[in-house]
């Protein structure tokens, strides 16, 4: 089971009502290839996709937020599992694709390759609703449930290493990603994120 196969399995769920935060690495380009959307934000700070998702979920409690992360990022900032558990956002679903390696940075083993259980880590941190996916169909059902039921929900998805052959890089950088995502949230929620335009008295031509 490859990560991109699981992303393709949940592509029908990735509609224009959902906000998704991904970590840096293959998942961000595979997600975009599976289902393009303006509603994806990439955390280039490794380990901070889950905190960004938590902040979004707390700011927008009526909006479902999906975090797509990797095992290396989880291990790097596993304390955030405890903060997610403590804050109990009902609208947060946290997926960790676990290939056992730092795939984007040399393919060395992560701790999950040495027997550390990501799901047990989430449960031990206090996240009560957790699942482990053993097939693409099961994964799709678990994500569907996570987005419908009161969470937070943690889904551990063991996958084989390896990316989506021939995939194209993302067509924008971090700043453009921020602007696209913020505009998407502004349209979706009717909130002001970017604080633009300038006050009228400053925004005159010439």
């Amino acid at each position, binding site marked *: 089971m490859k990560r991109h196969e699981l992303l393709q399995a949940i592509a029908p769920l990735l509609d224009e009502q959902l906000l998704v*935060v991904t970590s840096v690495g293959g998942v961000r380009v595979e997600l975009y290839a599976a289902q393009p959307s303006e509603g994806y*934000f990439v*955390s*280039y*700070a*490794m*380990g*901070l*996709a*889950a*905190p*960004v*998702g*938590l*902040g*979004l*979920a*707390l*700011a*927008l409690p009526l*909006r479902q937020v999906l975090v797509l992360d990797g095992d290396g990022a989880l291990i790097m*900032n596993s*304390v*955030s599992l*405890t*903060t997610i558990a*403590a*804050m109990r956002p009902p609208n947060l679903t946290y997926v960790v694709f676990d290939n056992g390696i730092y795939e984007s940075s040399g393919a060395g083993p992560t701790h999950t390759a040495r027997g550390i259980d990501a799901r047990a880590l989430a449960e031990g941190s206090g996240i009560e609703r957790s699942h482990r996916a053993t097939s693409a169909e099961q994964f799709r059902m678990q994500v569907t449930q996570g987005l419908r039921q009161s969470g937070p929900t943690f889904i551990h998805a063991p996958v084989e290493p390896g990316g989506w052959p021939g995939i194209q890089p993302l067509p924008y950088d*971090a*700043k453009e*990603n*921020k602007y696209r*995502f*913020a505009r998407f*949230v*502004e349209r979706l*929620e009717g*909130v*002001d*994120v970017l*604080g633009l335009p300038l006050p009228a008295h400053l925004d005159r031509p010439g």
Partner: protein
Amino acid sequence: MTDEAVAAAIEGLKAAGIDFVATLPEANLQPLVGCIADDSAFTWVPLAREEEGLGICAGAWLGGRKTAMVIMDAGLLTCCTALATLNVLAGIPVLLLVGLSGGLGEKYWMHSEVGRFTEPVLRAMNIVYAVCERVADLPRCVLDAQTLAVSSKSPVAVILNRECLR
């Protein structure tokens, strides 16, 4: 912090429109953290580590909130990579209220070293900051820092010196 200093910080945060605050406990900051926790004007997130606070605040800002972190300088130093690869790289504002350890009057040897790194690190990261020297200046300092954070879409820090923390 004295009641007067806590009230000044809260006044500044509210004047600046801050409605989402992430904190990490510390003895001097605890009176302020307690007030923020008890004030319904703020969504309060107690942190396990400062670095995750930058992610949480970034997500909240993307959701339309005005965000701040209340931390000590030791915590700020753990945040360098997150500041560079999240806030600076993408251009995401956050107001940082940073308690300064060390400096004149520091009684505890274990706190005497970290403070001297704080300003040089902020300068090296090209993060604008102001050292608030007097409690009376705190509301205006917080408001002005947040105004710049919003307009520049950058992290901006207010350093609380011993006069503000005592």
